[in-house]
């Protein structure tokens, strides 16, 4: 689970990287910064593109294509982060044969920065998931699964802060209730905690304690259960939050052609996005920043 070196800020290398960073941007007067967020969800082991005779998704998807697409987008803007919102596993023989090894290795080659854990990522049991974690060179984030009494204890972090071009991006993960979706013998002692409460804790820490400029939630809750009180979802999460800017969703395989702009608890916009499934699409959201004393307006221009 090593972070890519150019984003890592350890105390040993911080001064040197900081120097390079300052020359590139953070000291530049009146500089506008652009952070690009790329994301997938529910890829479900779809490594090869769909065949040309497939009834619905002919010639779509494929990891090798996504790799070139991501490389091109990183070239256009090096200040890019790549995330996945869970259900990486299960859906093709690649998972049945190799248990998720290839999925994690390929996501590492594509330089994914973080992913959250979906219900299907437990399909080979929590031990099966743990066995593949050495192949993941990206962070697994989940704030509302308590793994304390499982092999995953210490492997999964609740949140991670990425400093990109001097912008602090705080990312936390949320998972769906496992009871009824996954048999207990697979998830073992994993404890599910209320995602709304945990989200408010996480965003408060990221905003107030850590001073993040951008806060992103990787959620495998599902997009919209139309108010069902027993099934928390992304749209209600959005309206309950104070500081989260973007919820990258999964689980419901919802094809949004653009992010859903919701209003949070203090009347500010928060984006909810989800790009279907199987790696058919890549979501791309660009956030532009100005130094706080430079911007003369409180409003955010959302052009989607």
């Amino acid at each position, binding site marked *: 689970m090593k972070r890519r070196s150019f984003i890592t800020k350890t105390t040993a290398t911080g*001064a040197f990287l*900081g*120097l390079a960073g*300052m020359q590139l941007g*953070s000291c530049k007067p009146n500089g506008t*910064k652009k952070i690009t967020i790329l994301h997938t969800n529910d890829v479900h082991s779809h*490594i*090869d*593109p769909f065949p040309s005779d497939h009834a619905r998704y002919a*010639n*779509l*998807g*494929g*990891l*090798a*294509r*996504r*790799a*070139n*697409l991501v490389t091109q987008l990183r070239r256009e803007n090096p200040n890019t982060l790549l995330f996945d919102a869970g259900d990486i596993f*299960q859906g093709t*023989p690649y998972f049945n*044969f190799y248990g998720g090894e290839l999925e994690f290795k*390929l996501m590492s080659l*594509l330089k994914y920065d973080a992913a959250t854990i979906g219900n299907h990522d437990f*399909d080979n049991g929590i031990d099966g998931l743990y066995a593949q974690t050495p192949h993941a060179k990206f962070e697994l984030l989940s704030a509302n699964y308590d793994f304390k009494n499982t092999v995953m204890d210490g492997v999964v972090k609740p949140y991670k802060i990425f400093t990109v071009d*001097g*912008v*602090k991006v705080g990312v936390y993960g949320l998972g769906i209730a496992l009871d009824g979706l996954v048999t207990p013998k697979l998830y073992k002692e994993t404890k599910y905690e209320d995602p709304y409460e945990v989200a408010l804790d996480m965003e408060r820490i990221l905003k107030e304690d850590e001073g993040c*400029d*951008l806060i992103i939630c990787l959620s495998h809750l599902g997009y919209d259960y139309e108010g069902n009180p027993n099934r928390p979802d992304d749209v209600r999460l959005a309206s309950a939050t104070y500081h989260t*800017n973007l919820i990258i969703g999964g689980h419901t395989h919802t094809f*949004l*052609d*653009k*992010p859903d702009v919701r209003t949070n608890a203090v009347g500010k916009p928060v*984006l909810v*996005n989800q790009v279907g499934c199987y790696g*058919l*699409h*890549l*979501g*791309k*959201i*660009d*956030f*532009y*920043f*100005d*130094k*706080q*004393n*430079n*911007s003369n*307006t409180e409003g*955010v*221009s*959302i*052009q*989607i």
Partner: protein
Amino acid sequence: MGLKIKHFVIFITFLSVGCQRHPQQLTKVEASRITVSDSIIGNDSITFFIAPYKKRIDAVLDSTLAYVPKDLVKNDGERNTSAGNFLADAILEQANPIFTSRTGKQIDFVVLNHGGIRSIISKGNVNARTAYQFMPFENTIVVVEMSGTSVKDLFTFLANSGRAHPVANTKLIVEGSNTFTKMEINGKPFDENQTYFVATNDYLVQGGDDMGFFKNRSGITNLDYLVRNAIIDYFKKMDTITANVDDRFIQIP
């Protein structure tokens, strides 16, 4: 040498103080969705990395396991079909020895859902890939203990379902919607006071496909045996796979 290092440290300190991280104000958001289509060329090194994994899967999935002399389809009978009979017979054949070794009991009959059959099996050689296409889901075989009354409810449900839900080890004739003129299970006449062991899958036991009658069960044994693996093992065991529409479930209008 020492002096140079000192200077370097001072230089960094000076810059660090002079240029702190400023909080950033979000001013604008733009979004787009990019479709991963064949207009994007695949990355060769990724394709090369995947190749050995793919090669092994193809070798295993594509090696011939059995021969099917006649198409197995989902719609060649009213209350039972060749594809459904093949599936239900395969599960009975493969699951019964496991159930017996665990419990000392016998599976009496099998019931599954017609919608769970995801493709036909075309005549010719079949392999593990055929099994993945026929049964892509990770459902396991489950044996449910049911009272005779619940079994009768189950058969009545099947007779009124309008679909050919697969069954095995039965001989049923129903006239109209609920008059059973013949009910045999495992070669013996149906006994409403007897307990029956019914093999099905975990999805249906959890209420999938509206098969709510499994709620009235008295015991449950999950064999931890994937339906798909049972099909693959059945292919390996049988050289030739034949299944026909027969008299296991007949409905007379």
